């Protein structure tokens, strides 16, 4: 059977991608942030996996408003990199895992999660920046990837309860796969940030810290946290954090906190990062 061996969560700020691509990670501004990922880069080398399921949101890069899927899953062989207005990031093409992805998409639909199925998808910074943070600048990414885009751009976004439940269903579906694979699940986006309006630049470290604690130790309490609270306390774009609930749901009741990092700012955003492993 396949097994989920770890959960990784991280912010996915586009400026972080620019810093990597332009060789500025050791600039005074960026150095402390990238230093916070050194442990993680070594950890993923020491604890390799076959497949990464990456929960992320597209930022009007591939999906416009023609079609806005609430939950979607890529089942393709590979995913090209989007042009987000300044040309595609110079990173390797992302390779998929169609066998596990088709199994997961089918299982989830049968479990009443009405996934949109993507045979074609270009991925944006929401997916590639976390990969750059964990894997650096390889010629080829070390794992196969299953993209799981979530609508967090247009309100209403899916509820926290639904996100946590989706994670649990992913855990079951991975375990039912006929094939030996080690799988990690990533939740990306967040933490507190607001990139619009007169209130732009909002950062709420106490709220972020409590969210991290609850996500690790008491995720069920986050089920009923209303999106209004995320928007007020963590900023209008802080609602991206619901994607971390999908990751957490896939890890089971109890987890080990392998690593935690928090840094302000990256561009307009509070950067948060966790590595968790399931206890059973």
């Amino acid at each position, binding site marked *: 059977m396949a097994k989920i061996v770890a959960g990784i969560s991280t912010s996915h700020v*586009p*400026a972080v991608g*620019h810093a990597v691509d332009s060789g500025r990670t050791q600039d005074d*501004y960026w150095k402390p942030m990238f230093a916070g990922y050194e442990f993680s880069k070594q950890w993923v080398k020491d604890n390799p996996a076959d497949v990464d399921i990456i929960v992320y949101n597209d*930022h*009007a*890069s591939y999906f*416009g*408003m*023609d079609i*806005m899927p609430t939950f979607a899953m890529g089942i393709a062989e590979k995913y090209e990199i*989007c*042009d*987000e*207005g*300044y*040309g595609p990031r110079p990173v390797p093409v992302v390779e998929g895992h169609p066998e596990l992805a088709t199994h997961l998409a089918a299982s989830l639909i049968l479990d009443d999660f009405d996934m949109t199925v993507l045979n074609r998808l270009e991925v944006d910074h929401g997916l590639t920046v976390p990969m750059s943070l964990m894997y650096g600048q390889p010629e080829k990414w070390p794992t196969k990837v299953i993209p799981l885009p979530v609508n967090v*751009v*247009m*309100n*209403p976004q899916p509820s926290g309860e639904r996100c946590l439940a989706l994670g649990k269903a992913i855990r079951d579906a991975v375990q039912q796969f006929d094939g030996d694979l080690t799988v990690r699940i990533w939740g990306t986006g967040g933490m*507190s940030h*607001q*990139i*619009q*309006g*007169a*209130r*732009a*630049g*909002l*950062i*709420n*470290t106490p*709220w972020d810290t409590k969210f991290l604690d609850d996500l690790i130790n008491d995720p069920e309490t986050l089920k009923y946290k209303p999106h*209004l609270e995320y*928007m*007020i*306390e963590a900023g*209008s774009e802080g609602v991206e954090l619901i994607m971390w609930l999908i990751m957490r749901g896939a890890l089971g009741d109890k987890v080990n906190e392998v690593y935690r990092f928090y840094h*302000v*700012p990256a*561009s*307009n955003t*509070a950067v948060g990062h966790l590595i968790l492993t399931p206890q059973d």
Partner: protein
Amino acid sequence: MKPNFEQYKDIPGTTIYTIELARQGFQLNEFCMSLRTEENRKRFHADERAYLDEWDMSEDQKQAVLTRDFQKMLDLGGNVYFLSKIFAAEGMSYVQAVSTMTDMNVEQYQAMMVAGGRNIEGWRSKKERGEA
């Protein structure tokens, strides 16, 4: 469940991109999406007005784009991830573009971020601020 979009209107200095606003801003956001190719970026920069006239946008939306009034674009149904195509095509960062929506210049805004960001105290509610 009946949607409650009203609840978002008390958040100060914030425009929540609801499905209703998305409908209003569809053509504006479609225009933004078109800037994902170098060819269209060149055409837009060569003659902005003519390029905008290819889209079924309101005159207010077109004026907001021409004057780079990002707050106005949000009010008229734009969303910042779509609007980012306009400023990215001009080599502007999120920090530069976002700061134009605040009462700070970009240096002041950047200094605020480096010092830990905007403190939420006083920014939770329009009612609390006496704005509503």
